């Protein structure tokens, strides 16, 4: 159905690797159709053309790590009817949230010769810590099929179908034998939200938690299992402190193995 006024889509970037917004350009088969159904009104990675807001749907990538960005996100919110955060950086602070467990001044001095030129906050925080978020799409990176689902759900006025269960469900559906049970490979699948399609176990590797905590996870029980498989507290700590380190359930379980 041809709409008279196509809805306006905006894509915003904060601290991130660009991978999640690239997922939109990676929809090679759907991109021209998406562009037919909506106006890509603001998307600097793809176009120098800018349409004025307000925007019907804003996709926000990246975490807040500077004072300037902490202010900019409020402008984005004011200009957006619906605001959807995409990826681990935007939903939980991302890999750069590893600074939240260290002294950021020391880290900056390790990387830059003139740390005084660098303005950065002591913590990398998710967008929802700053403004109201309508929907959070997890993953490092996000799954592009889920991104298309979000846009399609929005265009059709329905709730996005994005499951919150664990990676284990996807393994079962895919028919992958459990790598932890059959091979003794430590796997974060039981506590990690589905969405990737249970890729790692299908590649003979334990899940390493790219989609963050599943709904009602039990990381304490999983840590016991990891210990039984010979993993040290340091290794368990590192497993939780990666791309979703600042997500509540992962942060707490990581902290429990510190020191």
């Amino acid at each position: 159905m041809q709409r008279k006024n196509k809805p306006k889509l905006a894509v915003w970037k904060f601290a991130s690797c660009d991978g999640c917004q690239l997922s939109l350009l990676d929809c090679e088969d759907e991109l021209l159709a998406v562009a037919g159904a909506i106006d890509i009104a603001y998307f600097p990675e793809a176009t120098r053309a800018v349409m004025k807001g307000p925007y019907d749907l804003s996709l926000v990538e990246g975490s807040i790590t500077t004072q300037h960005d902490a202010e900019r996100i409020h402008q984005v919110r004011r200009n957006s009817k619906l605001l959807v955060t995409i990826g681990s950086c935007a939903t939980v602070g991302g890999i750069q949230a590893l600074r939240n467990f260290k002294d950021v001044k020391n880290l900056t001095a390790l990387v830059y010769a003139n740390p005084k030129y660098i303005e950065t906050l002591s913590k990398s925080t998710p967008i929802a810590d700053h403004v109201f978020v309508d929907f959070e799409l997890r993953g490092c990176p996000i799954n592009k099929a889920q991104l298309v689902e979000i846009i399609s759900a929005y265009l059709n006025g329905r709730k996005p179908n994005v499951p919150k269960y664990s990676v284990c469900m996807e393994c079962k559906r895919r028919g992958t034998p459990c790598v932890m049970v059959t091979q003794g490979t430590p796997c974060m699948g039981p506590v990690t939200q589905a969405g990737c399609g249970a890729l790692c176990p299908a590649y003979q590797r334990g899940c390493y938690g790219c989609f963050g905590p599943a709904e009602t996870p039990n990381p304490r029980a999983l840590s016991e299992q990891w210990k039984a498989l010979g993993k040290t507290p340091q290794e368990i700590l590192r497993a939780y402190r990666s791309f979703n380190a600042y997500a509540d359930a992962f942060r707490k379980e990581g902290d429990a193995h510190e020191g």
Partner: protein
Amino acid sequence: MKDKTITQAENRVIKVGMLARVEGEGGLFVKVKNNQVADVKLKIFEPPRLFEGFMRGRSYSEAPDITARICGICPVAYQMSAVHAMENALGVKVGGALRSLRRLLYCGEWIESHVLHIYMLHAPDFLGYPDALQMAKDFPEVVKRGLSLKKIGNEIVRVLGGREIHPMNVCVGGFYRAPAKAELQPLVEPLKWARDAALETANWVGTLPFPDMEHDYEFVALHHPDEYAFNEGRLISNRGLDIAISDYENYFVEEHVAHSNALQSTRKGGGLYFVGPMARFNLNYEQLSPIAREAARSGGLDGVCRNPFKSIIVRAVETVYACDHAIQLINEYEPPPSAAVAVKVRGGIGYGCTEAPRGLLYHRYRVDEAGTILDAKIVPPTSQNQRIIEDDLQRFVQARLTQSEEALTLGCEQAIRNYDPCISCATHFLKVQVERD
């Protein structure tokens, strides 16, 4: 389009607040005083992410997964430089089918990244469109060809690496799982189409209008005696540089300036150098496959290219090469006995340098006896090209001072995009402003 020629343009400022169609956040500031370009700053305000800081204390085995997250466009490059550096530190040698699979994975990323840049980021500049989607309204078949070609690059990365962005199948020593022959074989027919489409691409980009700008650059690239270098070799230049990867820091230095959250690289002693597709093409032309050399000729290149605007042709040539080479690698593939070489942890220092789509990507790690990372250094291609970009802009603006603000700004943006800058990488880069006072 408004074309107001500025006559009293002795003093002016060109500013671009937010550069579009680059990866990451940056801008440009050019100041003209008494008809001389007085200052050019490529501003990088992408927030710092401090990777080298938080790599400390992580396990050697985590380096490919963590450093991949520096860049969503070229994660394979980060993974390749990381595993080679770690293998260098741990005394691990990866050869045979595993080495070939790494080359295949890199072919996938080169195709995906180059085609994204050719069709979606750079070509719209030459043809006067704000983006590829607008270009698609007048050139639907061209844009569709680009998208299909890009998809095949992504498909290689997906099959072999597990997913297009941040592949999870790469590890120090090789892969978690080596693909069966039957998994790779279905890629051959689409790749044959892709090779033809890439040839058509080379032909097409060769017809674009190119601004006249040549310069005698020092090109630096990895060189390997037996192949178009991706992962291994020595660092060479057209001015006699010929060093081992481990000597990189003895010849190149990084500087930190106030206007950039990315460090800038120069040759020791201050000389500027150029990395990326044009450097590789000029230094390693002889190692391109015959069909890729044919693509270069059909795109109008005769061996040496010194006009950075023509890098779009070089990217198309390298895309032809990557498709052609991928077919060869798949046809010759026999699964290795084991998906990865066994790694014995030891303390040491390791160097890795591979050819990311945008150019040299250098990693150095020091690890202790338990395999814990003590320190890390990462130099991405955009950091290395940052000074050359500023230098190009200086010459570009100086030669076009009578142009309108709008034409000059567009030209500057296009000149920056010649380098396919990846700002996300460089901070681990860009805003355009031109000031005439």
